[in-house]
Each structure stands twice: as structure tokens, then as C-alpha cells.
């Protein structure tokens, strides 16, 4: 994803940006506003990343989250905004094989990254096995958390395969297994207010079984 060095630069840019904003709001009207406009305009950034196999080049306000870059700039609205604060998981996407809340990460932090969204997992008529399992087990109702649940589910099975432990993993020295407790724990960042959890577990368990 992001080298520490790049992250440092981003942080410094953000600091400069916020200093400028403070200075501007502290200054009285007319000429200053026009001047500040130019300065703030400097704080857009060109970024290129790959979404669902397709290279995308964007010039974005630095404040744009990856979520809004996907939804508002690329019109990939399968990734949902439920809270915009990292509390619900509806915006979960997969970046370089790991899941992430797209609302909690700025788009400009993802130069060169490989991003997979729900649209990239499968499409009507050519479903990803997890999408098919969600339909079979009715692992959703309103459908708004569903893309996030499915992206999370796909990544969760990879995490367990990669032996990344969770809070409920008993023995850290042995291979983690796909168990209901492991799935429930790892999926708990994805809220479903319709309450399809019991069915979602069945869907993930089935996909895990056919993969094993």
C-alpha cells in the first residue's frame, strides 16, 4: 500500500494545508478570500490506482476519502456510505488483498494500489461464490450493508488462511481455522441493522467449506 516515507510527506502536506485554512478564516474578507482560494486549489493531488483491474487517474481534493473517490468521482456506488466514520463497515473494499474501511482512508494515500470493490467481485449473471451464497442463504434484506459484508467475507477467509489471528483465536502457535466464532468475531465491524447475521454466517461457512 503506502511506504512510511510517502505517509510522512502526506502528513506534512496536511499540516501545511490546515495551517493555511486557519490563516484564511482568521483574515477579514475581500482580497484575502481570492488569495486563499488559489492556495487551497494547490492542495489537490493527482493520484492513480487500479480499481477492479482498470487503471484510474484522478485529480482530487486532498480531503476526498477513497469512499467518495469511488462513489462520487468514479460512480462505483456499490461501495456504500453508512456512517463516514469507520463505525459501520458498509464501505469495506479490498486493497492489495486486505480489507479496509474506504471512508477512513484518503484517496491520495492509494497511489498505485490495487483496489477491488463489490462491482469487481462479480456481476449479475457472473457472480462471485460469496455473492451467490449470500443470495442462497438470504444474507441480507435492505442490501445497503451487503457489498461491505461480502467484501469483508471474502477478505476474512483469506485472513484466516494466512493465519492472521483474531481476538477469539485460542492458540496463536497453530493454524487458525474457519469456525463460527472466528467468522463472527472478524465480521463484527460490518453492521447489518436488518439483522441478517445468522444467514450471513451460513453463507460464509458454505463458501469456506467449498474452498477447503
Amino acid at each position, binding site marked *: 500500500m503506502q511506504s512510511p516515507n510517502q505517509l510522512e510527506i502526506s502528513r506534512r502536506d496536511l499540516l501545511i494545508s490546515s495551517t493555511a*485554512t486557519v490563516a484564511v478564516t482568521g483574515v477579514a*474578507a475581500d482580497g484575502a*478570500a481570492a488569495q*486563499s*482560494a488559489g492556495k*487551497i*486549489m494547490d492542495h489537490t493531488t493527482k493520484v492513480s490506482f487500479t480499481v477492479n483491474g482498470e487503471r484510474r487517474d484522478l485529480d482530487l*481534493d486532498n*480531503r*476526498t476519502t477513497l469512499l467518495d473517490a469511488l462513489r*462520487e468521482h468514479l*460512480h*462505483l*456506488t*456499490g461501495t*456504500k*456510505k*453508512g*456512517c463516514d*466514520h469507520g*463505525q459501520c463497515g458498509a464501505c469495506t473494499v479490498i486493497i492489495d488483498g486486505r480489507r479496509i474501511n474506504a471512508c477512513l482512508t484518503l484517496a491520495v494515500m492509494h497511489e498505485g494500489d490495487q483496489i477491488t*470493490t*463489490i*462491482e469487481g*467481485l*462479480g*456481476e*449479475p*449473471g457472473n*457472480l462471485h461464490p460469496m*455473492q*451467490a451464497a449470500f*443470495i*442462497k442463504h*438470504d444474507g*441480507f*434484506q*435492505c*442490501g*445497503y*450493508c451487503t*457489498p461491505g459484508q461480502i467484501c469483508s467475507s471474502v477478505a476474512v477467509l483469506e485472513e484466516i488462511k494466512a493465519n492472521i489471528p483474531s481476538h477469539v483465536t485460542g492458540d496463536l502457535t497453530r493454524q487458525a481455522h474457519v469456525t*463460527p466464532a472466528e*467468522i*463472527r*468475531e472478524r*465480521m463484527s*465491524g*460490518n*453492521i*447489518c*441493522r*436488518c*439483522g*441478517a*447475521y*445468522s*444467514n*450471513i*454466517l451460513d453463507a460464509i461457512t458454505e463458501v469456506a467449506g467449498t474452498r477447503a
Partner: protein
Amino acid sequence: MQFDTPATTNPIDRLKVVGQPIHRIDGERKTTGRAIYAYEWNDPNVSYAYGYPVGAAIPKGRIKSMDVSDAKKALGVLAVVTTLDVGDLKKGDFNTAKLFGGDQVQHYHQAIAVVVAETFEQARAAAALVRVDYAEEKGAFDLEKAMDTAAKPEESQEPDTAVGDFDAAFTSAPVTLDETYTTPDQSHCMMEPHASIAAWNGDELTVWTSSQMIDWWRSDLATTLGIDKEKLHLMSPFIGGGFGGKLFLRADAVLAAFGAKAAGRPVKVALPRPLMPNNTTHRPATIQRIRIGADRDGRITAIAHQSWSGDLPGGGPETAVNQTRLLYAGVNRMTAMRLAALDLPEGNAMRAPGEAPGLMALEIAIDEMAEKLAMDPVQFRILNDTQVDPENPERPFSQRNLIGCLELGAERFGWNQRRGPGSRRDGNWLIGVGVAAAFRNNLLVPSGARVRLDREGIVTVETDMTDIGTGSYTIIAQTAAEMLGLPIDKVAVRLGDSRFPVSAGSGGQFGGNCSTAGVYAACVKLREAIAQKLGFNSEDVVFENGQVRSGNRAVPLAEAAGSDGLAGEDTIQWGDLSKTHQQSTFGAHFVEVGVDVATGETRIRRMLAVCAAGRILNPITARSQVIGAMTMGVGGALYEELAVDTRSGFFVNHDLAGYEVPVHADIPHQEVIFMNETDPMSSPMKAKGVGELGLCGVSAAIANAIYNATGIRVRHYPITLDKLIGGLPDVA
């Protein structure tokens, strides 16, 4: 179609499609991210602007002035519209608090401005630059303190009911209970925030929004904006959950409309998550006193249920006593509701309004009473079952199989393994089981639909009915397929558009039965049109296997349609069957919990619901509604509470981090059983609803299970560990 006599045999009874476990017809769209929700409509030729709302920072008072000069100068800003700019607006019929307009602040986070900019980031940043000078007034925010000043709500709410002589019967009863229970304010927390896109074309307005009730919104938005309803086109084909929170017009639609007018461009507005609990409605808190008197043999002789709740002036009570009027027998009975004026945000419907909090209290009281009588709580409920309206014994229930639900549930759950309070243990876990009855009335609302048959033999259903996750798309397709003898893939369903016939909408668990009954009525019209065109006698005509048949003549539907196609449109209207007969749905919830002996943490181990709710139109989607409701009941029992800051007058935990709803780790495997039942009084579909029934009683079953596990009776929700830890046994 007027439904005024009980249904007899009709084409739905064939059950070739209706009643079958058919997967959601919108499933592929939802699981691949192709279902388009309100904020997501995108025409590449349109340049949308972004509106960001500003909420009031005081709970009550007046806005003296607003300074938007910095906001207007901020980069990218196209317009700022304030509540002072638009002045007083007419309030829609369904809202208690105004959504926007004028200088009065009625509650915290009431919308007072919308800032419109080229981008979301610019609008959000500029919204923070709006400065407001308030004249704050003192408000009332504490229900307990306001109890003494609570008034009798208007008579239409039936605030006081009484039959027999409760006081005398209670005083003379050998076994009595008199306890007070509280339920907190709760928030819907649907996953999709309230969101709208508004686009003006001259004096015509198009709004993509997230609404459970298209026609209510259309009327109220037209009223608020002062435009002709006919000039307003509303669309809401996918809704990311509602639970009652999207029944009534919300501020996002109003702000988008004003913002779009001011900016001269289509504008998108979504309520930021932290604005939602205070800007929108919530389920009001209650204080409930329940008194029950019984003979020594366990028969209830006296039952009283009083409830206090609060709302803004002009609002209504949380009708928490209503189920007590119908659920159990007892000759002497009374209920009373009192309403306190509070300056918290508007209280209004949340899933199973009335029954959900009412049963949270009543079904603990029943458990307590059973214990006083040394009776099994299942048996106590069975003993006090009634097959007639207890206030009016001449009036029977259309169907009532509460006993069947309790008995089957007890058998499947292994209820006979239950032991006395605090006597089962599994390692660090104290184990207990609990039961509660579920009860929710069946409401009948007119519902219309239009059905077209085209020359390809495809039937298209159009109705302004909404699918908030309930499965409307699927059960409506099943209904039309059954009526016309087609497989479900020959039916297309278009919902949530104000150009379509007005439907029941999604609310009060009436949507499934009523909207499909409306589709049934429209299909009857279409069948008649087809028969008439072919010169068939519509009495003996059969629609089967894609053909229409009369005697030895059979014509494929596509051919019957001809090049112009055929259509039928109708609205189901209801006679007085719900007056002559009490129509309700019933169920029983069984729960097993573990309570950590050291920490007091409660975990749900098993859940079973048995439901008797008329014909189940689709066992997959119906089951999902019930398990979802059971999940919400877990939240209500253990976690959910909008914490009131009684000094500053707002809900403090106004986001999904502070207001805790159940997550995956909280929910075990859930079992649901539907009783095999049809109710010919309910509609031609013979169905009722399950979406709210599934929630009713769940929280009390959990509370009762916690009591069984620990011996600690908690009467104040949510049952958090601090309410248990002092009473737990000592651990070494």
C-alpha cells in the same frame, strides 16, 4: 376491489409460486452493488452539486441571527440557504416538529441551513463556517421529572380504557404484582442515511429519496414547499432500511429542494450519521406501571397497564399499553397513557411502535406473576389465553394460535429442561432460559397497483409500494405470477415511484399483506380484460402454464396480449372485517443466555421464534424479517439506549459508535418456525405480517432468561452489566 367478506378459494390457493421459498428477485442487484439507492442516481450529462446540512446547536429557543458570509466566500460554494431565508414553512401532516424554516428551534440538530458547493468536501468545510446567534430557552428533557405534569393525550388515542372494576378485583386478589418498568429512547439506525437528490425543471420537482411511504412524502413535501403535489415526482426504488425512520418526510428532501432552487442545479443531500439521531425521529422512552391480580389457580382477575412517555408539543404518546388490552384474559382491566411535553427530538414510530416497548414490560410482569404463583410461565400464559377481545367478548379474534406457538416452541426448545433461577452453570457462565409471548395487530390499509401484460408474455407490476428489505419485490412478483399462471421470471416489478398507483407503503407490518392484496385486485382486472378480449367467460377461465384456458380453448398469454398489450389497475379497499373480528398476529420467543459470573456480561446462546401470522407468502423473506427483528430485540434488551443529556437537552451517543446495535459476535444461530395458517379475514392473500411480530417480546424473553440465569430481576432496559454485577454470586 372491496374486501368485505372472508376470502374463499381463489387462484392464490394454488400455491405454485406464492408460499414457495423463492430467492429475492433483486438479490443479484443487491449483492453486486448494482441496486441504486437515493444518493447514487447519476446522469452523466448532469452536474450535481452537494448540499451539507447544518443542525441547531441548542435544543430549544430562537435564532437571533445567522452569519453565512464566510461560508458563502468559501471555495466552491454555490449557495447557502438558511432557515431564516426561507421563513416559516407549512408543516406536513405527518411531522410533529418542523423540518426547516423559521427562527424557532424545537430540538437539537433541527436543520437550520444547507450549504451547497461543487464538491462534498467543500460543502462540508463551508458548513462549519456558518455562525449562529441563539437565544436559548429553558426546556424539559427528563421524562421522570415530567411525569407529574404529563397530560391525557387526545381521545382519538384512547388514553383511558376500563372494563369491570379493576381496583376492587386487584385489592381482593390473593396473588398480586405491582411493578414499574422503564424502556429508553431508541434509534432506528438504518444503514442507509436519509438522503435525497432534488432536481427542478421549471416549477416541476423530481426527488430521488429514501422513503417508506411515497404518497405521504409527496403530500408533505408539496405542502412544505408550497407547490402543487402534481408537480412533484418522487422515486425511491431501493431503501437501505427504515424501521419507521423513513415513514415521514425528512429534512434531507426539503434541504435538497431548497438547495437545488438556490444553486440552479440538482443537489444531493445526505444526513451525516452523527446528525441522524437528534435530527430525525426516535422511539420514545417509557415508564410503565403494571399491576396484575390472580386467583391462586393462576387465572388473571385484574390487569392494569399505565404508561408515561414524552414528546414535543403536538406529538403523541408511545402506545405501550395497547397489547395489554388484547393479549390476556381477565374480567377487570384498565389501561392509561399520559404524555409529557418534552423538548427532545420528535418521538415517533419505530418498528412495532407501542407493542415493542409495551411487551418489553408486560412480558417481564407475566414472568414475575408466574413465579409468584409457582407456575411455569408457558403454562401461565396458556391458562390466561383468550379467543375473544377481553374488552368486548362478542368480538372474536379472526385467528389466534398463541397456545400453539407456545406449546410447539416449548417442545422444540427443550423448555422442560428449565430449572429454577441461578441454578445452571457452564464454566464461568450462569445459564438461563426465558420465554415471552409475541403479539402485534394486523392493520389493513388500501393499496393500489397496475399490471400490464405485453406481447412477449411479460407481466409488469407497477405500484408505489416500497421494499425496505422486507422482500416486497419478490412477494409482489410471486403474487402476479400466481394470478396469471406464469413462472416468476416472466414478471417484472417496478416499485417506489409516485407515477405508480398509491399503495399501502411499508409500515406497521401491513405492507406485505396489503400490497400483495392490491396486486391481486389489479390482476383480477387484468384477467377480466384478457378473458373479455378473447371472448371467454371469465367465470370458468383458468390461467396456467403461460396460457389462458376456457373449456377446450387455450391461448398463450403473449398472443392474448396482442401488439398493444393489456392492463388492469385496481385498489384493494377494506370493509369492516377488522371491526367485527380482531385481527392480530401471535408468536412465542424462547431464548437461552449465559451471564458471565464475574463480569455480568450477557451473551445470547440460542434463540427460537414460533409465529402464527396467517399465510406466509415467502418463507425465505419472512424468516429473514423475523431473525432480523429478533436481532433488534437483542439490541433492545442488552445495548440500545439513546443517552439523554438532561442538562443540554440532546441524545449524546448520536452515532453508531456510541449507540450500540448488535453485531455479528452478539448473535447466535436463530431458529424460526411458522405455524401453518391462513386467515381468510385478512385479505384475498390470507396473509398477515411478521416484520414487527418478530421483535415483539424478544427483549422480555431475554430479560426473563437473565433472571433465570442469575436470580436478578432487572426492570430497566437495557440490561447492561452494571445492573447485574452487584447481585452476582461471589467469585473466588
